[in-house]
């Protein structure tokens, strides 16, 4: 797998791994247990460009491509999936819609501070009654002169507790069905913008996932992204891109679980030998390594297609689906290899097991991904 990467890819991976192992790995267990967002590390990540990976340099970003993006996300997630989530959602779901659909002025206004990590971004689509069915959102933005009056109840917002700039999906024309959906950018601190309690989640606990509610919040008309009614198009494109990052995140978790399992299998002795000598363990290790490699290859292919301007919806959906399932399976096998100790917080595989689970749920459930893939495949061979 390594030989498929360029010199630049390798230098990047070494550099990010070295930073993550030195700065994040020592605190990963604590920030998970304390459900704490590590500002001290996030600040350093911002200075190194992790919050503007694909943003052009003229807007304070690093100007990297998608393949390099997946490497950064995988390496952060290998040590702390909650921070990997923060970075990928910030880059793909908050910055990408502004870069893809914003005007020059909008990009100048929001992107540089996001790219430097001085401000954190969030993507607010999900509502209590609208998850997989994004068309069912109830949030409204009613135009009143030079501003919209926005009312919204957004839940499970990744980065919600720390986000300054939020991409909010609303209905600008409540009677127009799916064509009435639009995207506005709302900034924290605007009167009526309320951050709800941080969710007490099973995994990804270092990420302050929260609800965000807007009560008669006045948002200037110039904060509309794209045109009125183009909300679903923006959302679907952002999700296509975001799924590459979630796939990379899932690969990072699986890689960490594989490494821990191998380490433990070589140390733990039962029946007079390290358990790695037992065929039952070897079968699991072989399956885990094969799964991780296949997931990484699929994620890299999706990123490669995007970098080369090719259609990538199917490849991305397949990569995210597969990587999410691999991540759960590999973390599960890592726990199994650890036996009782794997079920204890004394070993990191317990955390990987909890973190892996949600990669089959968010940014489109595994079931929605199968629908997307089936639609693409049925069209392809028609």
């Amino acid at each position, binding site marked *: 797998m390594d*030989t498929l990467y360029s010199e*630049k890819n390798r230098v*990047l991976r070494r550099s990010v791994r070295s*930073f993550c192992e030195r700065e994040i790995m020592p605190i990963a267990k604590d920030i998970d247990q304390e459900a704490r967002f590590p500002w001290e590390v996030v600040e350093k990540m911002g200075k190194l460009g992790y919050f503007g990976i694909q943003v052009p340099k003229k807007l304070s970003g690093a100007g*990297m491509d998608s393949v390099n993006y997946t490497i950064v996300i995988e390496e952060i997630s290998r040590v702390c999936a909650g921070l990997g989530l923060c970075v990928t959602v910030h880059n793909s779901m908050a910055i990408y819609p502004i870069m893809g659909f914003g005007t020059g002025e909008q990009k100048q206004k929001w992107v540089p501070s996001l790219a430097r990590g001085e401000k954190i971004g969030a993507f607010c689509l999900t509502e209590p009654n609208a998850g997989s069915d994004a068309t069912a959102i109830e949030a409204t933005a009613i135009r009143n002169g030079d501003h919209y009056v926005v009312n919204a109840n957004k839940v499970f917002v990744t980065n919600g507790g720390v986000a300054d700039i939020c991409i909010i999906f609303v209905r600008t024309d409540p009677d127009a069905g799916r064509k009435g959906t639009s995207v506005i950018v709302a900034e924290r601190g605007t009167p009526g913008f309320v951050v709800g309690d941080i969710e007490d989640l099973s995994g990804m606990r270092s990420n302050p996932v929260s609800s965000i509610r807007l009560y008669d919040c006045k948002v200037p008309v110039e904060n509309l992204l794209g045109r009125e009614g183009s909300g679903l198009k923006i959302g679907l494109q952002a999700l296509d891109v975001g799924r590459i990052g979630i796939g990379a995140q899932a690969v990072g978790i699986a890689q960490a679980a594989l490494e821990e399992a191998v380490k433990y299998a070589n140390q733990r002795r039962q029946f007079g030998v390290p358990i790695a000598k037992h065929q039952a363990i070897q079968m699991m290790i072989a399956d885990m390594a094969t799964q991780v490699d296949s997931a990484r290859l699929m994620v890299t292919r999706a990123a490669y297609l995007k970098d080369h301007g090719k259609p990538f919806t199917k490849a991305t959906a397949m990569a995210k689906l597969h990587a999410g399932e691999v991540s759960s399976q590999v973390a599960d096998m890592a726990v199994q290899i650890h036996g009782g100790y794997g079920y204890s917080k004394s070993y990191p595989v317990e955390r990987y097991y909890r973190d892996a689970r949600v990669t089959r749920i968010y940014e489109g459930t595994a079931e929605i991904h199968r629908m997307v893939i089936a639609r693409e495949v049925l069209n392809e061979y028609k």
Partner: protein
Amino acid sequence: MSFHIVVCIKSVITEAPDKRVIRTPEKCGMNPFDRPALETALGIKEKTGGTVTALSMGPAVAASALYEAMSMGIDRGVLLSDPCFAGSDTLATSNVLVAAIKKLAPCDLILFGTRTSDSDTGQVGPQTSVQLGLPLVTCAHSIEYTDSGLLVERRADDFLEKFQVSLPAVLTIHPSSVQPRDASLSGIETAFEKKEFETWDMAALDLSSDQVGDPGSPTKVLSMKRVKRDRKCEFVDGSAGEQVDALVNRLLEAGLIG
């Protein structure tokens, strides 16, 4: 004061080899002991201005160390590469570095890591300084500038020695003297956009084949194998008191305590 600082870096093998050293791009990276030398050079440049040049001798795959240095922010990278350099020991390596440093002259400061993580000799810095006829301080821990040169603290075991050194000088930098910076993502992007490191071969350095590679190396590596460490477990019999006495005697005999 504006320095030209040359930092000599090495692309090391990051996985322990067995019997034969095979350099592949996946198993090469910058010697971790060179990072503090680069950081020291970049720190001086930030304070006083000037330029930082990194030199690295090795085959084409050694370029990864130069890319890493360029990502950290050096001004110029030079790869010293020629098939004739293969098999160079530390003396032949310093012959090549000396020729390159003379070509880069004037240089105010030449920095090395204290040693490398693969061959671990720590000889190349000192050999280079001797050949250049320049003062040398190894394990430099802090550097101050004076009108007459540098005040350098050298850290060896639990002692700090302070030296006054005239310039130009050669220093090897103690690994705990500074925290090397991380390459920023835009630094990495820029390093690979520029791709501006030069490659100098034997002819460019005006060297002859008897100064480099096998002919220029008074030492030869004849073989290499892993050392196997045998561990054995012994049980000490007797009452608790007797067991303690026996254990203490055993540790005394082994010279581990006392």
